[in-house]
């Protein structure tokens, strides 16, 4: 059962071959047996089975939707009423969400059954999952490797077949990079497509929720649930509801795929480049035309991102002050000391670094030089993509310069880890959709991801291109031996 697609699981439930309760219990047993991967922060059987029973009732009444009864792992960043919602932080170790995020509401309405809450870098800040208060997630392909971040728990859970699909979020690559490192498929939609209501904010102008699954088809079905206008998110787009699976089977003949020369330059590991080349050659066989394009300001995405994201984080995370929710220090002499000690104790090192950086770049006299300048560079980067899309329909390239590195390998130098996000950050800055799909393996046997970048609202076309590749290759069906 664990290798089945979402469509197949749905058919099994509809045909009463298995109940939602039985399906959930099979996945839960696997999740419990593989606790050493640390993919989940919280499992809560009673809640899972209550949801599964409700799904079975819907199935029995004939009112079930396509996804009713299908199990899902939820990233611990989405507030889910009654569930411990930690965002990977000690700050929220005692926080049981009193309401549902829009994404969770939509999952509930669809009848999806929550298996548990997946591990993540604290407040989604990180590329290795080592910044979680609950310890690093292990990569199911090699337990000495990082799973990527920040949605490492979601990617590892799907890779290890602890869940068929998972929710995730992407601020600078946090869906695509862990999907690549764990050999699964994930898509970050156009900014504004998935509501941020109830999704704990990191950098509001960049954060976007999206699905992780074994295949493009599974991601399309989950994106159908997650996407939609929500007036409680002021940046949510009033965009007509789409069926993201509508074009999956369309042929690719005539599709123009652009390869940005900056993504294949110095710094890209040769084994990753070789794997990406093989995937590109498959696209040629499928009838696509390959053209070279240029994204000349790619390198500037790192400084622009590491101004904008910390600036917005410093503002968003000011709400964690020990007054209304979250950690409060045990001893303090006055209000200021209560804030300062609660925040010093509740936040981990990387989160503190980013708050301090953000506070500095927004402080008096520096706003224009840093934040405003970064917002202008953001426009330059977005314009580069539009120029590239005059010559191609989709852009393809690597997700990350290397495959997963070893746990602990890049911990000592935070800025070295920032450089690993070179191919993913620009997509968030421009607000474009981007996805990652499995494209073979590096020399050390760890998965490599192919990144597809589309123009605004081209998710269906990207999923089509990904699905067609997955019809002629089997990388996405490979599972780690555990």
């Amino acid at each position, binding site marked *: 059962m664990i290798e089945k697609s979402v469509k197949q699981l749905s058919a099994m439930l509809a045909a009463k071959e298995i109940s939602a309760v039985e399906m959930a219990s099979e996945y839960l047993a696997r999740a419990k047996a593989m606790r050493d991967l640390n993919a989940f922060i919280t499992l809560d059987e009673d809640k899972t089975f209550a949801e599964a029973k409700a799904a079975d009732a819907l199935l029995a009444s004939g009112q079930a939707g396509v996804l009713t009864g299908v199990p899902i792992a939820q990233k611990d960043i989405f507030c889910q009423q009654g569930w411990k919602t930690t965002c990977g932080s000690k700050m929220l170790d005692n926080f049981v969400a009193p309401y549902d995020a829009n994404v969770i509401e939509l999952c509930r309405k669809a009848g999806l059954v929550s298996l548990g809450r997946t591990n993540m870098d604290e407040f989604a800040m990180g590329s290795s999952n080592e910044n979680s208060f609950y310890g690093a997630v292990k990569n199911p392909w090699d337990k000495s490797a990082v799973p990527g971040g920040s949605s490492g728990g979601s990617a590892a859970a799907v890779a290890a077949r602890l869940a068929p699909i998972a929710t995730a979020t992407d601020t600078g690559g946090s869906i695509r990079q862990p999907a690549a490192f764990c050999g699964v498929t994930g898509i970050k939609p156009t900014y504004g497509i998935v509501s941020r209501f109830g999704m704990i904010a990191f950098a509001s102008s960049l954060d976007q929720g999206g699905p992780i699954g074994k295949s493009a088809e599974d991601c399309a079905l989950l994106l159908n649930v997650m996407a939609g206008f929500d007036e409680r998110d002021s940046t949510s*787009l009033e965009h007509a509801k789409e069926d993201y699976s509508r074009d999956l089977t369309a042929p690719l003949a005539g599709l123009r795929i652009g390869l940005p020369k900056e993504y294949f330059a110095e710094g890209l590991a040769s084994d990753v480049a070789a794997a990406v080349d093989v995937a590109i050659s498959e696209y040629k066989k499928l009838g696509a035309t390959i053209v070279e394009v240029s994204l000349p300001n790619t390198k500037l995405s790192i400084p*622009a991102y590491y101004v904008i994201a910390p600036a917005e984080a410093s503002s968003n995370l000011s709400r964690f002050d*020990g007054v209304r*929710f979250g950690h409060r220090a045990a001893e303090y002499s006055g209000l200021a000391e209560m804030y*300062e*000690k609660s925040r010093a104790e509740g936040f981990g090192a990387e989160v503190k670094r980013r708050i*301090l950086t953000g506070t500095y770049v927004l402080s008096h006299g520096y706003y224009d030089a840093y934040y405003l300048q970064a917002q202008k560079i953001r426009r330059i980067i977005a314009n580069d993509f539009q120029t590239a899309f005059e010559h191609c329909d989709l852009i393809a390239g690597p997700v990350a310069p290397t495959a997963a590195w070893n746990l602990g390998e890049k911990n000592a130098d935070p*800025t070295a880890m920032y450089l690993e996000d070179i191919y993913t950050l620009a997509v968030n800055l421009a607000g474009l959709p981007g996805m990652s799909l499995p494209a073979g393996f590096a020399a050390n046997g760890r998965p490599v991801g192919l990144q597809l970048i589309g123009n605004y609202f081209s998710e269906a076309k990207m999923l089509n291109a990904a699905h067609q590749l997955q019809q002629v290759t089997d990388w996405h069906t490979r599972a780690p031996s555990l």
Partner: protein
Amino acid sequence: MSLSIEDVARIARLSRIAVTGDELAATQGQLNQILTLIEEMRAVDTTGIEPMAHAQDVMLRLRDDVAREPNRREAWQAVAPAVEAGLYLVPQVIE
């Protein structure tokens, strides 16, 4: 530019995060490394470029000024560190 220990202490105070003793020097080193990384951005000529906050340049929506959320004070306060009689408790602020 490079931050001094006094700068770091000031930023920490503005951030309401206690950074003390040995942490100050370590933090100074790390923040200066991050600032070095973002420095190359400052030299870029951005004359005439509009800053971008949202790719779709959406306008903030307005809605009618009516209450929509039900009163859920008990649910919100159930997760608070200290409450009494429906009020959040904090140390004395006004002498």
